């Protein structure tokens, strides 16, 4: 953890904790429901990586943009997306944020600057770069955060997007969530060199402990300030770990095979490693919050998650005609 600021930052710290807890508890619920076969499609959970999205989005403004990934619930909630609308979407309901047309992998809220979660690994690079180009042309000081994983860093568009962002000084922050895994393969077995070195060719880089929400926040803050000043893109790599499988149906799909050990997972879940328990310990240890406040916060989050589940359960089934009517916007000319 970086040095304690002041107790006067309490409000901000509690908000960071609350956001991380919201992601964790809502995804734990999704895991249970997925296992029970109650969700229509696949879910890719962000559990263990919450500090990255929360730390990064805490220094963005509502008008700033993000591009997200197939593991996008955390980004959506961290950027201010509505949990009820997200659950209704995953449930396939009309009340869903995408009217039930996108599902878990495509949660988006353009009004909050969330330019879509993306089922194509690396699909966000070029979209973020284009949005950054647009922001640069407008000169309005907006910035774009492009979340991607170490798996996506092996896509060619990563280099292409960094090249253009660098050549044109675009306000893009490339945030690599390095969880060491490319779907069901350990990334080190398929990756040459260091990811950071790829980015170094184009822009300033910083590698941080991705399970330390304040470290992520500090690194992204610096990158955002640089981008807003018009000084171009940055790369922030957050070292973290995915606790759940690539997707929730993973065990059934792997037929008994494994790509990592239970010990590896347990090590990242330890109290000193897990981004949430670790931040709680820090806040308690420094007298920033009381134990009773943490308990109250935990209860509040459970209530919010329960309400969101009830909301999604009570929703109407998605309109089956939308697939036809939504493909094109009404043509005026």
């Amino acid at each position, binding site marked *: 953890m970086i040095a304690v600021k002041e107790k006067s930052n309490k409000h901000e710290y509690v908000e960071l904790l609350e956001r991380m807890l919201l992601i964790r508890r809502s995804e734990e619920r999704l895991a249970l429901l997925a296992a029970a076969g109650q969700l229509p499609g696949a879910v890719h959970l962000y559990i263990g990586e919450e500090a990255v999205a929360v730390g990064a989005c805490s220094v963005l403004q509502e008008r700033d943009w993000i591009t997200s990934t197939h593991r996008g619930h955390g980004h959506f909630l961290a950027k201010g997306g509505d949990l009820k609308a997200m659950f209704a979407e995953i449930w396939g309901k009309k009340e869903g944020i995408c009217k039930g047309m996108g599902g878990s992998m495509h949660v988006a809220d353009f009004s909050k600057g969330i330019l879509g979660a*993306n089922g194509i690994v690396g699909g966000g*690079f*070029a979209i973020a*770069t284009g949005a950054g180009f647009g922001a640069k*042309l*407008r000169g309005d000081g907006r910035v774009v955060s492009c979340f991607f994983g170490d798996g996506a860093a092996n896509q060619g568009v990563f280099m292409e997007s960094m090249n*253009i962002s660098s050549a044109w000084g675009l306000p893009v922050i490339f945030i690599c969530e390095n969880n060491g895994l490319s779907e069901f393969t350990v990334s080190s077995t398929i990756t040459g060199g260091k990811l950071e070195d790829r980015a170094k060719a184009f822009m300033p880089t910083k590698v941080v402990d991705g399970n330390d929400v304040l470290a992520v926040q500090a690194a992204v803050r610096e990158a955002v300030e640089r981008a807003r000043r018009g000084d171009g893109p940055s790369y922030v790599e957050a070292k973290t770990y995915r606790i759940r499988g690539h997707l929730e149906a993973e065990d059934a799909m792997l037929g008994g095979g494994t790509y990592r050990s239970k010990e590896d997972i347990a090590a990242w879940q330890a109290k000193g490693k897990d981004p949430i328990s670790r931040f709680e310990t820090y806040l308690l240890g420094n007298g920033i919050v009381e134990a009773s406040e943490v308990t109250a916060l935990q209860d509040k989050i459970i209530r919010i998650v329960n309400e969101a589940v009830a909301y999604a359960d009570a929703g109407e089934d998605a309109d089956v005609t939308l*697939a036809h009517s939504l493909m094109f916007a009404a043509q005026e000319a």
Partner: protein
Amino acid sequence: MPSKRMIAAINEALFEEMERDENIIVFGEDVQLAIMGDTRGLYERFGPNRIRNTPICEATLTGMALGATAAGYHVVLHMMFANFVYTGFDAIANQISKMRLMTGGQLKIPVTFLACYGGGGSNAAQHSDSAHPALMNLGGINVVMPSTPADAKGLLKTALRSPNPCFFLEAAARGGQMGEVPDGEHLVPFGKAALAREGSDVTLVTMGSATKWCLDAATSLGKAGIEAEVVDLRSLVPIDEEAILKSIAKTGRLVVVDESRDCCGAGSHIAAIAADKGFFSLKAPVKRVNIPDVAIPYAPAAELAVLPTPGRIEAAVRQLVG
């Protein structure tokens, strides 16, 4: 009406619309000098914030086109040759054609793609394809293929005012073709075919580059007393089914002429429409004249042999009209 080359009509549409709407920006490889001629002069007039050369990286450019719409721009992405659609296909097929539905209609995607297609220039296999069948099959993208300078101007102006992604495909071999072009405001709606020639014996349904071949074939057939009607679709997505069905109801015979390959080409789709909805109008089987399922060869004679040229069209018609 002044007579202009096709490429000049396209250029005129870009100039007029960029003057009219300051949110239109153009980017792509070598657009500043404009090797095709279509974007020539735009850089001098509008400067680097409206038109800009990019690196050669189609896979990123297509995704960037989508991203830049978030800032309220209408993006014109010049893809140079239609073959490069394949290089940039991920963001076209997985992002641009799907993002609107996937997000429950949260966004509009005003992106106009320009790309030159087709054979006839000995550009060989990687610079001669017509990518329209792959684009038609996506569902979320308008595809237009003008055959005259006037339609080129009118369809492009419509595309540049559209809230939807559109591929404006320019026939590489027809840039110099002359025709009358209305000055100023001239819009051609999507999904409305043009009757390029009236006839009573057989219908030729075609689009873009192949329209000229059809008209040449029709002139030649006319001398032999066979009157061919030529329906120029102008836009493939949306497609004017009514115009196709109306013409075959009149002639009873259909030859589809299309500069794409045989398997799942545009012609296959048009033939299917006729079979599904026009079967009882037909006096003879539907014939397709297109490119066989081969790569386009380089040598001029070898290239010409695979294109849907007038000789092949005439031969197909003569099989139906005895």
